[in-house]
């Protein structure tokens, strides 16, 4: 009889311990981390933004090259003809060349500014796509927090078991060219 009571008490204690462990696992927040640089560099959306930007950049560069070649041609022409020109004509041509050079510099800096703005906008868009996906992924998988590691970040160590970089990157790229 005593043996049966002890067995019952053991069984109850074991059940309570097991229940407590399950409760602890379910209530403790799930935390994971992603290696931000790997996600950003591996994301198809970022690669496409960079490719689109480089294409635009080379178009702008060819415009600048054309203007620059035109300026060089004018300078060469001036140096060839300068011996035959009067002082007044020389002054006029010099002024024209200076203006042309100033225009080129102005155009160059405007293009650079435009390029930076456009790249920032497109890149920010791609980063927003990553953030959106991480949010959806975390909600689906029940993560309370997803941390991102950066070179200047605060995470000094994290176990590889909570590294979800590969899963996030895979899902992100699969959803990028949505077929449904």
């Amino acid at each position, binding site marked *: 009889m005593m043996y049966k009571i002890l067995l019952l008490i053991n069984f109850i204690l074991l059940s309570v311990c097991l229940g407590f462990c399950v409760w602890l696992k379910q209530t403790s927040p799930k935390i994971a981390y992603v290696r931000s640089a790997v996600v950003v560099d591996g994301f198809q959306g970022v690669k496409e933004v960079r490719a689109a930007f480089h294409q635009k950049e080379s178009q702008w560069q060819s415009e600048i090259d054309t203007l620059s070649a035109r300026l060089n041609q004018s300078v060469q022409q001036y140096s060839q003809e300068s011996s035959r020109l009067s002082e007044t004509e020389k002054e006029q041509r010099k002024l024209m060349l200076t203006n042309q050079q100033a225009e080129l510099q102005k155009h160059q800096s405007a293009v650079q500014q435009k390029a930076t703005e456009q790249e920032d*906008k497109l890149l*920010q868009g791609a980063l*927003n*796509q990553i953030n959106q996906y991480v949010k959806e992924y975390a909600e689906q998988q029940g993560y309370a927090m997803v941390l991102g590691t950066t070179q200047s970040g605060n995470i000094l160590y994290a176990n590889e078991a909570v590294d979800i970089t590969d899963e996030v990157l895979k899902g992100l790229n699969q959803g990028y060219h949505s*077929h449904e």
Partner: protein
Amino acid sequence: MNKFPLLWIAMLATMLACKPEIRTEAELYQWINDPENGFVQTRKVNDLSITVKYLPAAFLAYKEGRNMPRATQKERDSLLNYYSHSRTFLMTIKPEVASGASGDVIYQGIGNYQEYQQRVMQLNFHLGEYLSLHAGKQLFVPSLSTMENTYGVTELRNFYLVFSDTDAHTSLLTENELDFTFQDEIFNTGISHFVFQKKKIEALPKMTELTTPTAL
């Protein structure tokens, strides 16, 4: 033994008889709006949802034909033929979370009047520069891009986009995949691809006499 071929024929006839058919306008909208049928795709980025819906030629011809009650069958066929040479899409951008005082998507991320002015200009006159349709190796830009004016009644914005080509055998009509690409420099949502399968978008069931008008 001899009954088996007859059984097969009977089954085939039953299957053919069960082929879906659209009888009412509500059924037509339901079919187009069901993501399973491949006419509509949505992406959510930066608190915005971007939905691109393919509008089939039969639907466009039907909608226009509705205003021509006296049109003959020949005229209706001609209308269908006209729309069959292009691809039309409806892009809807709506806020997922209300922004600012009004919640109107046009004000999303806008800080001052100059930015607002620039956005209105971009959406009304330059949206086509950010959109393209890839069909195989060919790239098409919209031949028509129109923003529907809502006069502040809704928080979303609708854009009608038409891609067309004069060549009847162009990849626009023959390619198996149509990749509608939005390179967004307006709302900061990055580059979004909406890939439509020809097999699916051409599987619109036959439309018989439609009734009961409803809104899209």
